[in-house]
């Protein structure tokens, strides 16, 4: 039965707040003046920028020092990531490795894997892509058909992964594949492997999106040999492994800040003396951002405390995605007839063109509402 949603009050501690000014200064110094800032974590694959972030110790911040990490809290990581997103800095190169693949290896990886893969990630030199979806498996992840067959010293992979962001630019993919029968739960027989995207037997084909950009890819494995050292966790434990990270994947600031630069450019556009209607819109949007941020920090606090706030995380993502989609729709009506090079127009167009992805990636709105309904005891 429903026992209430658990968004405990939480504030970022002083040691986390103390990082803020440094990140701001860094971004202002490192980003060229003509760089079109974008708060979407998927936009902006910048190797040099990621390396500089790595040098500052801002990748793998929470990881143990022996693997290159900073042994910082989730709150400190939170401040760094939200500052980077709010400033519209390019973060997509290292994003998945930092948020997802690294923590996965820390939790389930072997000592050799941690020593091999984690330090280069923290230096901002090694990038990972997600290998979950397939042509016939989107929301229904348990239906993946890519198979791994055990051979001497490793596994042979065959199948196709889809929508893997930046796979054409990144070094590795963590692929979820079938290694055995699905069983009654359909969740058995899945395993995860680290695949070097430059290996023989791997073909990466970029797929152009509606914005004209090539961000996501089709990745085909044809008799691709993967050494047994690249198995992540236990054979058959893949389902537990992919679902364990959802709290981290779904509640971060990237789930409500994707359209933030539109807000910033709108504030610049209206200037110091906005009309009543303009100030009302700014205030409305700001109220949503402030509330979502409080909710997101509350989930970060639960994660820091070792809890598993799956329903709350799904809720933050769902609310946040709806908001970041609504933001450009509301702003555009206040900014007619902008010239083609106007920063607000550029920002609006970029965000609008990418906005369909907001409520699809990382769990569709429909899946999230199902997760929330289950958390409420309705199913």
């Amino acid at each position, binding site marked *: 039965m*429903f026992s*209430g*949603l658990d*968004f405990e*009050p939480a*504030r970022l501690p002083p040691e986390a*707040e103390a990082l*803020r000014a440094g990140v701001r200064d860094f971004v202002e110094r490192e980003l060229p003046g003509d760089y079109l800032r974008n708060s979407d974590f998927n936009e902006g694959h910048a190797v040099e920028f990621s390396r500089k972030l790595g040098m500052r110790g801002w990748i793998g911040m929470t990881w143990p020092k022996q693997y290159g990490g900073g042994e910082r809290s989730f709150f400190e990581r939170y401040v760094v990531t*939200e500052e980077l997103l*709010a*400033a519209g800095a390019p973060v997509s190169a290292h994003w998945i490795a930092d948020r997802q693949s690294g923590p996965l290896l820390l939790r389930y990886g072997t000592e050799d894997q941690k020593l091999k893969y984690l330090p280069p990630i923290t230096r901002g030199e090694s990038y990972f892509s997600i290998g979950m979806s397939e042509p016939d498996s989107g929301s229904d992840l348990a239906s993946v058909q890519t198979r791994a067959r055990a051979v001497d010293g490793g596994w042979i992979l065959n199948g196709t992964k889809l929508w893997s962001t930046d796979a054409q630019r990144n070094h590795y993919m963590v692929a979820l594949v079938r290694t055995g029968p699905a069983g009654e739960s359909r969740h058995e027989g899945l395993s995860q492997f680290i695949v070097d995207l430059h290996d023989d037997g791997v073909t990466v084909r970029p797929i152009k999106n509606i914005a004209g950009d090539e961000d996501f890819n089709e990745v085909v494995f044809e008799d691709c040999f993967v050494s047994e050292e690249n198995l992540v966790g236990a054979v058959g434990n893949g389902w537990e492994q992919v679902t364990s990270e959802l709290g981290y994947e779904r509640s971060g600031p990237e789930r409500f800040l994707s359209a*933030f630069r539109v*807000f*910033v*450019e709108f*504030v*610049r556009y*209206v*200037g*110091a*003396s*906005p009309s*009543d209607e*303009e*100030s*009302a*819109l*700014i*205030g*409305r949007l*700001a*109220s*949503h*951002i*402030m*509330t*979502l*941020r*409080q*909710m997101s920090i*509350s989930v970060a606090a639960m994660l820091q405390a070792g809890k598993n706030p799956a329903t*709350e995380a799904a*809720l933050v993502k*769902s*609310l946040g995605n709806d908001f970041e989609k609504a933001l450009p729709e509301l702003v555009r009506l206040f900014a007619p007839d902008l010239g083609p090079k106007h920063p607000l127009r550029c920002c609006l167009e970029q965000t609008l063109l990418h906005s369909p992805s907001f409520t699809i990636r990382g769990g569709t709105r*429909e899946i*999230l*509402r*199902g997760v*929330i*309904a289950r958390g*409420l*005891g*309705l*199913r």
Partner: protein
Amino acid sequence: MTYDLILGTAERVFTDHCTKALRDNAESGSKDDQHGVFPEDLWTIMQETGLHQVGGEQSGTSLADAFRVIRLAGKFALPLPYPEILIGNRFVTGEGLTTVAEGAIAPWARRAERVITDDGQLVDEFDVVQGANLAGEPRDEIIFESSESVKLPTNFRAIMAMTRVAAMSGALEKLLELTISYVGERKQFGRPISGFQAVQHNVARMAGEVAASTRASDAAIEALDTDRFVVQVSAAKVRVGEAAGIVAEIAHQAHGAMGFTHEHELHHYTRRLWAWRDEYGHEKEWQQLIGCRIASVGADRAWALISDCAD
């Protein structure tokens, strides 16, 4: 009194005494059965248990405690001018009922000994023109010739807005509970309607709005003694006001015709939400307050203001 003790006492008193009949009888308005009967017995118990002065200077409790107990009262649709009683007793002392007027309109002025106006006047001789909000809660116009002055803090309007935020977030939580329980019991097509995906998704959306409201309300209370208080209350009044409309709509939709009857208690919460979101400034007033503040710091410091580390 400690906060836990207050909350425990309040929960017990509200559970035992705040019945639907009591709320129905307290309603004021133009309909034949809207008698505006003040719940005298409940008021006596509130005074005996000290619940009438939570947040008062001598009570050993804080203003934050007052907001939290107002939230609980919102969850019970308490038919007393409870926010006005607590805020009134914080700023003036005296036997009997103190209420607070927004402009010239004060909840239950007809039953009050004295009225504080939000521009800092203390009035104890006044005439009353009875009125009510759309929830049937008495909202009386006061007419007076003389007053004393009472010193109110500069953020008084934000404090009063916060009482509505707190009460609304309580009522919103109640609506979520009522709705989850109703869709689990109501059967159509041979199964509980909670089994239908369309219903599940509406309730999930509602849960998001309710959780956002609770968080926004708590965040504003947490900011009480800081210079962020007014901005946080503004954001909360905006966010919770927006949620009130959405949640009331979904709650009624989920309850069907049953929830549209006067007999069902759903309207004690939905009508209050529709009324409270307009009291002490509807969304637009507070949107503009934040909007102007952000515009004045400019685009490059907008994030600093939002992430509350503005210096």
